[in-house]
């Protein structure tokens, strides 16, 4: 990565790094637990966080090890042919890393995550557990069903906590989350320029933290970070501008390994990143619950949704907006929804003249060994195309 006078000491970035280093057992979370506040885990971007937040609970996203480690428990319980993400998460659970959770909420999004939920429940009983049925379509009927499911989650929570989740509370949570989405959008806009002030790996740190700490606090830090960046004069540039797509991935090391080879990651289509912050909840002409359910079902789609064209279009749009030279698709073995899309996505991107590098990885990989060879070759290929 070439840069001119990058001040690596961005205080707020460091704050986020600290959170990520100590997660799941971060100071903030342990403090909350001491004040016996509740902390819930959630499994997939189709889980409406606002509802949990509105109930006065801290929602944190369940993620696995940020290294490609042997999954002895994971493989013994989830068997060897479930994706290393769910195995990695379950193993952390079984090893007690998430022992503080008061609840677990998941959606019926993919076979891997729903079985992760099943086994988590079976072997690590959590006081509260809820599964939302998430339709795979965008039809009005689907919206109606998903809305019902969101209402059921709210009612289940109310009954479990024996309190009411008021519309006021919901509206408040929505505004907190929308602000967060707005700020993250600003952060991403900084990456559209030729010499972004922030690298892909750094952005990943920010997004990881956003799903692991109280949102209000996160928003404040991010606001300050944006101010810092504005005056930092940081400039990143690389041999090519890249987009990362595919399975769930939240390891900054992986992005760093790409950027150290000179490919600048300027955007992504990951459920831990873009698909997490994109699209605010629109409360103008809907009830809070309705607005929430619409946002979550209509959000930047996962490969599970039908038709996939909707996802492909947004990928192509992003590739255009961020002036992307190439796409790196990283797919975890046994991540069926994404693996199935490779033939179709490759075709769409080729038509748009954007080369794609399809990597098969294990969750948590730091992109070493053969992967880095492929990435370097891909970058060299992109260069010769440019000339």
């Amino acid at each position, binding site marked *: 990565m070439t840069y001119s006078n990058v001040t690596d000491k961005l205080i707020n970035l460091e704050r986020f790094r600290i959170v990520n280093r100590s997660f799941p057992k971060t100071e903030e979370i342990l403090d909350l637990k001491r004040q016996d506040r509740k902390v819930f885990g959630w499994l997939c971007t189709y889980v409406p966080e606002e509802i949990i937040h509105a109930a006065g609970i801290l929602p944190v996203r369940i993620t696995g090890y940020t290294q490609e480690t042997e999954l002895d428990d994971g493989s013994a319980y989830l068997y060897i042919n479930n994706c290393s993400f769910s195995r990695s998460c379950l193993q952390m659970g079984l090893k007690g890393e998430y022992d503080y959770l008061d609840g677990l909420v998941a959606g019926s999004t993919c076979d891997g995550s729903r079985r992760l939920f099943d086994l988590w429940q079976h072997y690590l009983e959590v006081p509260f557990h809820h599964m939302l049925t998430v339709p795979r379509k965008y039809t009005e009927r689907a919206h109606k069903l998903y809305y019902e499911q969101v209402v059921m989650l709210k009612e289940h929570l109310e009954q479990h906590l024996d309190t009411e989740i008021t519309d006021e509370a919901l509206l408040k949570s929505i505004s907190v989350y929308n602000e967060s989405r707005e700020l993250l959008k600003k952060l991403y806009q900084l990456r559209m320029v030729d010499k972004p002030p922030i690298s892909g790996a750094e952005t990943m740190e920010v997004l990881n933290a956003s799903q692991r700490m109280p949102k209000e606090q996160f928003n404040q830090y991010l606001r300050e970070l944006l101010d810092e960046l504005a005056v930092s004069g940081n400039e990143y540039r690389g041999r090519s501008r890249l987009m990362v797509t595919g399975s769930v991935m939240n390891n900054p090391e992986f992005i760093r390994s790409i950027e150290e080879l000179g490919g600048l990651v300027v955007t992504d289509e990951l459920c831990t990143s873009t698909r997490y912050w994109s699209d605010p909840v629109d409360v103008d002409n809907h009830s809070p619950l309705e607005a929430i359910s619409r946002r979550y079902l209509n959000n930047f789609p996962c490969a599970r949704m039908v038709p996939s064209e909707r996802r492909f279009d947004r990928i192509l749009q992003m590739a255009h907006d961020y002036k992307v030279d190439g796409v790196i698709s990283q797919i975890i073995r046994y991540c069926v929804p994404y693996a199935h899309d490779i033939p179709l996505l490759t075709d769409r991107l080729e038509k748009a003249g954007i080369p794609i590098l399809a990597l098969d990885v294990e969750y948590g990989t730091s992109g070493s060994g053969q992967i880095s060879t492929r990435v370097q070759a891909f970058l060299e290929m992109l*260069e010769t195309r440019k000339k």
Partner: protein
Amino acid sequence: MIFTGIDIGSRAAKAIIIDDDAIIGSTIGDTGPESVKTAHMTIEAAMKGPGISLDDISYIVATGYGRVLVPFAGENISEISCHARGINWYYPSVRTILDMGGQDCKAIRSDAEGHVTNFVMNDKCAGGTGRFLEMIADVLETPLSEIGELALQTANEIPFNTICAVFAKSEALAHLRHGIARSDILAGLNDAIAVRCLTLLKKVSIEKDFTITGGIAKNKGMVAKISEKVGLEPVLAEDPQLIGALGAAIYARERYLGKESEDTGKVQYGYNDATGDYYITIDSERCDSCGECVSACPEAIFEIVTEDGHRPKAVVAESARKRLSILCPGYDSCSSSFKVNCRSACSKDAISLSW
């Protein structure tokens, strides 16, 4: 002028030394556990032939698994690019390359200049790689160099169920126990591997001419099987295992001399590393050899030369070419700190910097 490409593969380390267009030295040895040591041993071995020393070599490019740890290399380039470029030196007509190396197997598509246009690599499985054949070779207690010939002697090859290296091995053992001929076992394995290679190739779509590079391309039995499956006779280099190193050597020359392309008189000086492109480009067509740049450059890296048969033109001085990274801070920085510099000084606007 002498250039070297060094290819530290996962199993074997190779080096090639070229003088202009002629190969004057080459070597193939084992890759040891210490990368740097391996690199030194390899280059020493290669330099023995022509009897030269490191100082005689103008520029070195490294490739292969160990490419990042070659202390004396100017830069490193992935083996995929190098194989494409290397075979292009022998056969510019090659469009499809199957590189069968020690740990992985790659299908590469390249254009007339030997640039990679598409490639795929075997996924997280060693089936069908050199290492895999090694394992099989010692299961069959046959030297690796002989299994190719042996496979060709098959009377009736036996189908193999798996090419998972771990399980193919036990399957091979089982067959041996049942007294099946080694040649038949090998033929069966080669068939399984060839099918797998075919799939890789089809992923990048096969176009003539077709070639096989890497160590396994020396395995007659395998080559026969693959050409049978692909339906194309591969054009083979005299030593396919050296193609990666050769490609690196050609890159070395190109990087050092600058890419002169006939159509436009543009000449590039500089280098590119993991962090990006650093090229000073001089358009000899436009250059009127006024010499402004020579005096303008704070580091005096330019000079006016007259090659016989050519009119005088500005070039980057030979002495400066290798040290460009130290000497030239790039246009942005240079223009900010100095009033005049090469680019602003050039009235014909013949000089441009990539950074």
